């Protein structure tokens, strides 16, 4: 009988924090600057420059720790991790080894198999590296230090996950918590959230762990799921063939759906960690910790509960809306501006989700503002525009966040309220379509649809359909 294997997975998740400035200098963390424009002597490793810790980084890291049930290390330190690479200007990374800021936490995940706790070993703070750009044309490499010194936290889980499904549930849970905290936008594609997968397999029932590998370069949930499946198979094949799994770091190539070894334990680097002498220990006082605790936002579970009590909208809608902090914010802001919660929910659940799918956009990237959504709803409520015009306007708003009031005005999309004009158009339509009129009178109710359509066409879509219907019925009497 074939042996049964269990997959054992632990995750190292790097999250780029949403601070305005870098972790150890005052340079901007904004994306998109020309190479080496967001730099200074500190983040380019100039001789004699010194790091100064950005307090916001400590606050975000501690906030994530509190939200994931960690204990906070109130006396923590930074250490240097020494290795040579050109994207690392000092040839050491300032990180935390001996006294990380958070330890011993857990989050609860839910999959088809029910609820489960994933323990968090630690969360530590560190700096990001710069970026190497390979110039094929000139056959040289260039370094851009704009990302050098951008703050990161690394969340290290215990090997508590057993499947890709659990891994993704865990990542989604972390992402939601961090997004709700505003500590990061957590975008895998853009690299503001990165997950390295530590995976081993063992026979079901075994108490000891197998030899694990670490897989890097996973840029989407799909890639993570594929890489886990692939690595599980690879390790099982090795074991079945009587070969040993080598402890090594592997790089996933999502296009080829294949991973290859980067370096093995034998030539593993000795990082020569030691306490960073240029920074003083961080003392997080009880008062400071209380302040951070008191600033914790309303997380998803509490929000769902409150929505259920406050708004008359379906539970399913609530779960979708609160699955993104940004969408929940849009919802609450539009409602605060006076829109009907049900209407807001409808726009989010139907048109927004449709366009998100069509444009392959994530909820966190929605461009339109709550104010513009509220304006659009007001335009339909007052019947200034009809529903099909509203959908058109929404689509433009979705893409470009236009102001619907101005747009409707500029494009002349208002419903025509001049009853005399509408009546004369309908009279013309009736004269031009005697057959339809005859059909209707003969009892073919369907004919009314055709006549309404013709009228709307003649009105260039700017008529209120209920008004057309009323006048038609009146004239056909």
């Amino acid at each position: 009988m074939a042996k049964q294997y269990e997959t054992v997975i632990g995750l190292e998740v790097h999250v780029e924090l949403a601070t305005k400035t870098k972790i150890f200098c005052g340079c901007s963390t904004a994306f998109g600057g020309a190479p080496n424009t967001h730099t200074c002597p500190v983040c380019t490793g100039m001789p004699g420059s010194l790091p100064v810790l950005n307090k916001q980084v400590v606050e975000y890291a501690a906030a994530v720790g509190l939200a994931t049930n960690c204990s906070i290390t109130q006396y923590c330190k930074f250490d240097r991790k020494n290795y040579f690479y050109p994207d690392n200007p000092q040839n050491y990374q300032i990180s935390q080894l001996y006294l990380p800021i958070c330890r011993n936490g857990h989050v609860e995940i839910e999959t088809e198999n029910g609820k489960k706790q994933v323990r968090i070993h630690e969360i530590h703070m560190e700096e990001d590296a710069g970026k190497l750009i390979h110039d094929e044309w000139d056959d040289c490499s260039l370094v851009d230090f704009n990302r050098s010194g951008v703050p990161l936290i690394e969340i290290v889980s215990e090997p508590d996950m057993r499947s890709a499904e659990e891994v993704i549930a865990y990542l989604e849970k972390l992402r939601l918590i961090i997004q709700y905290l505003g500590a990061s936008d957590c975008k895998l594609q853009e690299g503001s959230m990165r997950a390295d997968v530590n995976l081993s397999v063992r026979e079901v029932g075994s108490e000891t762990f197998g030899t694990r590998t670490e897989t890097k370069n996973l840029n989407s949930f799909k890639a993570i799921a594929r890489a886990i499946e692939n690595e599980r198979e690879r390790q099982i094949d090795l074991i079945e063939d009587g070969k040993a799994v080598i402890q090594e770091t592997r790089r996933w190539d999502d296009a080829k759906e294949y991973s290859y070894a980067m370096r093995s334990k034998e030539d593993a680097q000795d990082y020569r960690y030691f306490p960073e002498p240029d920074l003083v220990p961080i003392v997080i006082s009880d008062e400071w910790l209380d302040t951070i605790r008191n600033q914790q936002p309303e997380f998803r579970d509490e929000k769902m509960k409150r929505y259920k009590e406050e708004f008359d909208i379906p539970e399913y809608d609530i779960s979708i809306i609160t699955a993104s902090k940004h969408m929940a914010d849009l919802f609450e802001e539009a409602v605060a501006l006076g829109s009907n919660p049900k209407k807001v929910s409808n726009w989010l659940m139907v048109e927004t989700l449709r366009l998100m799918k069509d444009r392959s956009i994530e909820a966190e990237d929605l461009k339109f503002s709550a104010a513009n959504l509220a304006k659009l709803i007001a335009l339909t409520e007052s019947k200034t525009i009809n529903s099909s015009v509203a959908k058109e306007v929404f689509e433009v708003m979705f893409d470009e966040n236009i102001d619907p009031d101005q747009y409707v005005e500029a494009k002349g999309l208002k419903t025509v309220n001049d009853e005399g004009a509408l009546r004369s158009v309908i009279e013309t339509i009736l004269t031009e379509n005697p057959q339809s009129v005859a059909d209707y009178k003969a009892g073919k109710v369907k004919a009314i649809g055709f006549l309404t359509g013709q009228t709307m066409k003649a009105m260039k879509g700017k008529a209120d359909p209920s008004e057309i219907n009323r006048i038609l019925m009146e004239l056909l009497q």
Partner: protein
Amino acid sequence: MDITQLTALELGKKIRQREISVREAVLASQKKISEQEDSLHCYITLNTEAALMQADQIQKKIDDKTLTSPLAGVPVAIKDNICTKDILTTCASKILSNFIPPYSAEAYQNLEKQGAILLGKTNMDEFAMGSTTETSAFGVTKNPRDPNRVPGGSSGGSCAAVAADECFYALGSDTGGSIRQPSSFCGVTGIKPTYGTVSRYGLVAYGSSLDQIGPIAKDVTDCAVILEAIASYDPKDSTSVKRDSYDFTAGLVNDVKGLKIGLPNDYFGDGLDSEVKASILAAAKTLEAQGAILEEFDLGLVDYAIPAYYTIASAEASSNLARFDGVKYGYRTDDAEELHHMYKKSRSEGFGPEVKRRIMLGSFVLSSGYYDAYYLKALRTKALIKQAFDNAFDKYDIILGPAAPTTAPKFGELVSDPIKMYLSDIYTISTNLAGLPGISIPCGNDHAGLPIGVQMLAKCFDEKTLIRAAYSFEQTKERR
């Protein structure tokens, strides 16, 4: 009158009183430099043209009274490991032979605000690693008192420049005695302030937890005034301390009555030259005659200071010097096949033997499997040494001893034997491990006329008492 023989404050006063113009002062220093530099080699880089332009600008500000500092218009020399914007800063290393910093060190900026004029950047041991200035990649500096002898190190160029009147004062850096020992060898006065007093921002790091910038001058008064000028709380340096007082000149008081001075027996044992010993004891007696109370005591742990120091300093240095890789600035090898080859070749060609020795030593003590046995043990030793000093300062206001076991040795004597060189730091390195302030002031000469310096130490942040003791001692002697 030879202007260059004035102290910094004497010159500053004459400039403010319009007896001497700033330009005259700069020209006098430059004349002295051009007469002597070929034989002494105190400087790596001279700032000749810019200094004269600066002189005229500073003169205007003195004339219209926008600058009234005692150091306004006084020419200064800066050790070449302190960054000076747009001016070559080499750390006496081939690897930084083309490095022009885009910014200035905080301590230097503080001096610029006082109207200091930069004459040039002084020679030193490569990356401050050495005790003789012989490890410089740009040639040795000779001791102005005897050209066959070293000036000491690592701030040898700064101390020699002050001793040879090639500047009115200088800045040095002290990681294990690099201000005090060459001050002793050259017959000048130098202070290593309490760790955290002078910003390290812009000081090219050797041992980050030990490095401090300090003044080197012709007398205690100058040193106190310069220290007051360069010391500041600097938010750019996380180890910078916001002190209660920066009023160092308040210590310029000739009064040691009742001052308790401890003489550590450990500092007067084997290895101390008998002439040096006699001179230091005589200095102690002089203070006693002025009303100080002397007492001998056992400090302890002295034998452990050298291994602890070289473990910690080398560990930090191995990491601090990793950034010199030929990628971003500095020396890059001409021909390299690929990245790691470039790193290896650039660093092999760019660093001198003493720097390589310490990088290897530091890398070794931090490597896995050895970290606990060496680095952690050294940190614990450091804490014990600090404790021993704390205990001593419960009893004494000042600890007095030699700055170095001998007077200046001849070229090659120390640098050829690293262990002997490391041991020569025995009286100065504990100070850095404990973060204490220390001063070296001339107290006599040996039979060959070579200067001897007496070292005094005080508890952390008590430079005022240190300066009072040193100043009082200085008052008992004739001006040179």
